[in-house]
């Protein structure tokens, strides 16, 4: 059993588990949308006093912050107990494409060229992380949701706005991957 869990999980099992998380949250009277937490944290640190957008009863979102803390713990527990730290088995064609950008083949979960402490403390590395985060935060609030709120919850409810948002996610992702990344890496 443990051996089965420590291997990388199949796509179908992972997808089914994500759907299960969404249904459990619905059953507990909430909905699956992770990026709301970003707004809640802005409000909780006091931005709501001066600003209408963050002036809402953020304590009603406490359940989602607890879910966020759980997610951090989940990452930690996986690293400690369920990880074999095998390199991510990505397609050979992806490895070849990334090598042209100066990113080596996977040796663990993430590329050291972007996520090592060394990269993080270099100017270029820091800028990549900062701009990536900035656009994720800005875009998810502008679009009113992220992958969980739109691609999973919204599409499950057949909502057209969510479909448009997901098309946007891909438009942005393709522009970054094929047009911008070759310039900055």
């Amino acid at each position, binding site marked *: 059993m443990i051996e089965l869990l420590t291997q990388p999980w199949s*796509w179908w099992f992972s997808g*089914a*588990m*994500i*759907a299960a998380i969404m249904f459990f949250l619905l*059953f507990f*009277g909430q909905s699956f949308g992770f*990026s709301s937490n*970003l*707004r809640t944290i802005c409000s909780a640190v006091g931005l709501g006093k001066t600003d209408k957008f*963050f002036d809402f009863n953020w304590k009603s979102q*406490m359940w989602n912050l*607890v*879910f*966020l803390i*759980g*997610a*951090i*713990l*989940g*990452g*930690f*527990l996986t*690293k400690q107990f*369920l990880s074999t730290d095998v390199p991510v088995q*990505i*397609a050979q064609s*992806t490895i070849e*494409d990334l090598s042209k950008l100066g990113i080596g083949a*996977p040796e663990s979960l*993430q*590329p050291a060229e*972007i*996520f090592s402490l060394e990269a993080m403390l270099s100017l270029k590395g820091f800028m990549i*992380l900062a*701009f990536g*985060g*900035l*656009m*994720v935060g*800005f*875009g*998810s*609030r502008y*679009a*009113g949701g992220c*992958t*969980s709120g739109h691609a999973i919850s919204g599409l*499950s*409810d057949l*909502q057209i706005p969510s479909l*448009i948002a997901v098309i*946007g*996610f891909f438009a*942005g*992702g*393709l522009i*970054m*991957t094929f047009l911008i*990344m070759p310039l900055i890496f």
Partner: protein
Amino acid sequence: MKFIKFLLLGIVFGIIMTKSEAVSWFRIQEMFRFQAFHMYGIIGTAVTLGVAGVALIKKFNIRDYQGNPIVFSPKDKSVSRYLLGGSIFGLGWALSGACPGPIVVNVGYGYWAMAIVFFFALVGTYLYDVIKNKLPH
């Protein structure tokens, strides 16, 4: 105590995201380059089961654990905010290789660089609020 179920669900979510490798920058690149089925399989399975389950909840008026109806509120009608906001999100998703959930899961896994991504995601959320009246919605 009423929050413990959300803590447990969050823990399971963090484990799923890590073990499915959906938290990996490599997997996101592979997805945007259309070079593997993995990420499409994960999202496709979740959405397929999600559509079926939500339809059943609506058809049979299934209630939550406290007996309240499960309501799905329709999102505001618009094209520009979803397309523009979504595209900006997509730019960040491809660059940092993580959306908000996986960002924090990565921090838990020990990738401190993701804490920078998370901090700037908060800054981005704040920035949206500052200039939102000037944006098409």
